[in-house]
């Protein structure tokens, strides 16, 4: 194991800094992964901020956590927000916010209402009501993007994958 468990990654970690339960610990997650091949569902809480790049052993903890997420996806354990994101890109060519939001709602993903309300207020302030509430719209490249998805992995693959909700408390569905 290249990682010598110094914990620099964890000291620098954004997600660890906002985890009051102290469960989010990349050093520990890497130990379990490298020694026993164990995945941790906490990997979905990584902020992808790359603060952990200062690894004295050059391990790149962010890549280890990304590999854990990729492995979960290969096993068919795809969190609802990931599924909604990928499907929005596949169907719209870009991250159409209305479409993404609707897919999240459909999957039963609960949003933090205080953030939803301030987002709406903010959009109205920046561009008026029509900007805040708009119908989903496919971008011009949507067709080519859908072709890319279907050529790489066969038609309809995202929705055919089994979606499971991670069991750990506090981990997003």
């Amino acid at each position: 194991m290249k990682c010598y468990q110094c914990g620099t990654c964890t000291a620098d970690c954004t997600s660890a800094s906002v985890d009051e339960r102290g469960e989010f610990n990349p050093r520990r997650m890497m130990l379990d992964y490298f020694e026993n091949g164990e995945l941790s569902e906490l990997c979905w809480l990584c902020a992808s901020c790359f603060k952990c790049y200062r690894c004295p052993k050059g391990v790149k903890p962010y890549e280890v956590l990304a590999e854990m997420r990729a492995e979960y996806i290969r096993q068919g354990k795809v969190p609802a927000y990931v599924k909604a994101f990928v499907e929005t890109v596949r169907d719209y060519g870009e991250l159409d916010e209305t479409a993404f939001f609707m897919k999240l709602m459909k999957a039963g993903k609960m949003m933090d209402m205080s953030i939803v309300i301030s987002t709406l207020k903010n959009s109205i302030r920046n561009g008026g009501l029509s900007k805040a509430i708009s119908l989903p719209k496919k971008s011009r490249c949507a067709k080519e993007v859908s072709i890319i998805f279907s050529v790489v992995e066969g038609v309809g693959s995202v929705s055919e994958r089994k979606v499971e909700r991670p069991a750990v408390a506090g981990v997003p569905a």
Partner: protein
Amino acid sequence: MEYAKSALELLERVGVEVVAKDFNCCGTHIVEEYSRDVWLALNARNLSLAEESEADIVTTCPACYQNLKKAKIELEDEETRKRVNGVLASINREYRGGVSVFHVIEILSRVADKLPQVDGGRVAAYYGCQILRPPEIGVDNPENPTIFEELLEKVGFEVVDFRARAECCGGTLLLTNSEGFKKRALSIIREAKKANAECIVTLCPLCQFSLEVVQDKIPVKPFTSLIVESVSEKVSERT
């Protein structure tokens, strides 16, 4: 004024010829983890669009910048490029490998003397994450970046000493840990106030969103918007 619109205005002002293209989403790390080849093909498509116009790519978003640049480096491997071009063939496209990727701050800071001068106030320059990290992709030394402060000072702003400038805004936690998101974003705001800034200046649409949406005590502006707006204020004061 919107970030993208003001960035275009400044690019044109400094003499950059801008060609609008039908770009797709970069996919971010989410699509990368979902399917590496879909992610590579999405970015290769964007690179091929620039290539057909003999242009380079400039982004306003550090995540787009990072994904394009990462994919571009991976596509330098001939075998990878051949495999991905096999996918692009289905939409009659090909990427040959000759496009450079820039974030708009890189372009504007190279020609900062051509930018308009403003009577700027006291601002906190907020880098966030993906413009600096990982270091092999970032636009400046992640331990002690200067590119943003230098640009803002050159056009006439006073840049405050801002401890949280390269911390994470928490924006990526929005859907996974909303309490953590608010905590992070508010801690950035607190540091900016402590530094006595009148405005926080961003170069990332997600940072912009995060810092704007959690509070209304201190204005938050994309840097190009602030420059363009300060110029028009200056003009309207004179008339």
